[in-house]
């Protein structure tokens, strides 16, 4: 019966991983920009939640919206002001740009918040759920449910809204989209903003689970990479599948091999998949 517990842990973890990765996947798939800022965006979202809770008593489940909105604004400005200038350049150029920006943002956070690990200690934790033989921490489950809801919301926005259709059109054919009257640079900025929104909101949700420090950004970025490769780049369902797959791999890996090997295992699987099935579990299709 321990397997049920390990499975449940993996699913909870997977929901959070999906939320971590979906914005990264969106930006990569639509803009062909590998956004190395993504990990720092997540950490910044965690800090927004931390300070909102410390100073104003706003629960991270609510400040996820605030963190998302703040990061959307930051992402929009970064794309409109900087990345758009080199968007047509080869992918290495935008990679170096976001690498440099990440160094600046990450060190600014180190300067402002120090490298000390902080944690949101909820005054009223939800306790744990008992489902037969399975124990689940209530706050984690709630964070996962919210993460899934946010990801599902992004999916609906992309599928059913006018802006969402424009984002998908730009992903498929930027020039044809321009001929429809789409302002491609504005859509780029909105897309980058949406990616940052998801990072910020995910960061806020993670703040009740993981310790917060700028040092964690590369960890989150690494997870986002693995999820994208597992699920296939460029779709919300892909990020969901990849996230859950990574959650399960880490959960079972930790159980069988010991928790210290969980990350080694996930990156080993990443390497194998890159050789065997580089398009991911779901393969590559339109972004929706």
């Amino acid at each position, binding site marked *: 019966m321990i397997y049920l517990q390990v499975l449940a842990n993996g699913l909870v973890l997977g929901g959070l991983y999906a939320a971590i990765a979906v914005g990264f996947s969106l930006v990569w798939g639509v803009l062909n920009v590998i956004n190395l800022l993504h990990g720092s965006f997540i950490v910044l979202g965690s800090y927004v939640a931390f300070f909102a809770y410390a100073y104003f008593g706003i629960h991270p489940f609510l400040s996820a919206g605030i963190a998302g909105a703040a990061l959307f604004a930051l992402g929009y400005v970064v794309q409109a002001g900087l990345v758009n200038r080199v968007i047509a350049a080869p992918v290495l150029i935008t990679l170096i740009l976001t690498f440099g920006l990440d160094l600046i943002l990450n060190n600014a956070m180190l300067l402002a918040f120090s490298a000390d690990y902080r944690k949101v200690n909820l005054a009223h934790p939800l306790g744990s759920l008992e489902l037969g033989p399975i124990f689940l921490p209530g706050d984690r489950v709630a964070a996962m449910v919210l993460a899934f809801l946010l990801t599902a919301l992004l999916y609906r926005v992309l599928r059913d809204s006018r802006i969402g*259709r424009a984002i*998908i*059109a730009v992903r*498929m054919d930027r*020039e044809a*989209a321009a*001929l*429809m*009257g789409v302002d491609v640079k504005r859509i780029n900025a909105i897309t980058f903003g949406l990616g940052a929104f998801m990072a910020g909101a995910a960061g806020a949700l993670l703040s009740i689970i993981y310790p917060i420090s700028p040092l964690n950004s590369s960890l989150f970025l690494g997870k986002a990479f693995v999820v994208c490769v597992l699920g296939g780049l460029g779709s919300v369902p892909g990020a969901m599948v990849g996230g859950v797959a990574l959650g399960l791999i880490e959960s079972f890996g930790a159980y069988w091999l010991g928790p210290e090997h969980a990350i080694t295992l996930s990156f080993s699987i990443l390497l194998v998949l890159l050789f065997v099935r580089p398009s991911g579990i779901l393969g590559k299709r*339109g972004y929706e």
Partner: protein
Amino acid sequence: MDAPKLSVTQLQAGYGDVQVLWDVTLDVKPGEMVCIVGSNGAGKTTLMRAISALVPVSAGRIAVDGADLTGATPARMVAAGVAHVPEGRRLFGAMSVRDNLLMGAYLRPDKAGIAEDLEKVYALFPRLAERQKQDAGTLSGGEQQMCAVGRGLMARPSLLMIDELSLGLAPRMVDLLADGLRRVNAEGVAVLLVEQDVMNALELADRAFVLDRGRVTLSGPAAALADDPAIREAYMGGLAG
């Protein structure tokens, strides 16, 4: 109503250091059907892309309804009533036919009008109505061209530019498309058509321009050009009777 729908004056354009268009001057009157013929590499596609502001213009002037739109954005050209059906159709392949058509109406705020025009496009090309939920990438070549033309019409343009209507399509499909285009034109939409099938183009159009190595070498009523021995020699291989 004297201002031409589209007037292009002494246009020069190209890619980087390679100049493609040299002093191209042409006009399309409201409601007129005009075709541009010429061999491969003559600059027909570049001309359309320059009008749509996809290619930068180095000199000359592009005006729509008398208003100077040289150096505008693609979106402004669409807003001014110029829709461009690009070469190779360029549909959004993994999007449904219906969503492709709706993309054509991207700049329009009038929901009721969009729904009305969607029905009009379906009436014009009933095949699209049958396949509206299907991904555009799964359509046959002719159906894709219908979808591309329909997508252009969804902008409710006063000038529809089509880069290659018939290329690579079965004769039956070409007839359906040409017929559709006539009906669109009869409703008052001006058409600027680039076509490799010179016979077909001259039959459809009121007026024609011949483009050769980036310059307009000949222009006039389509019927007159169709009888021009030089044209017959150069583009019809002397075969057409």
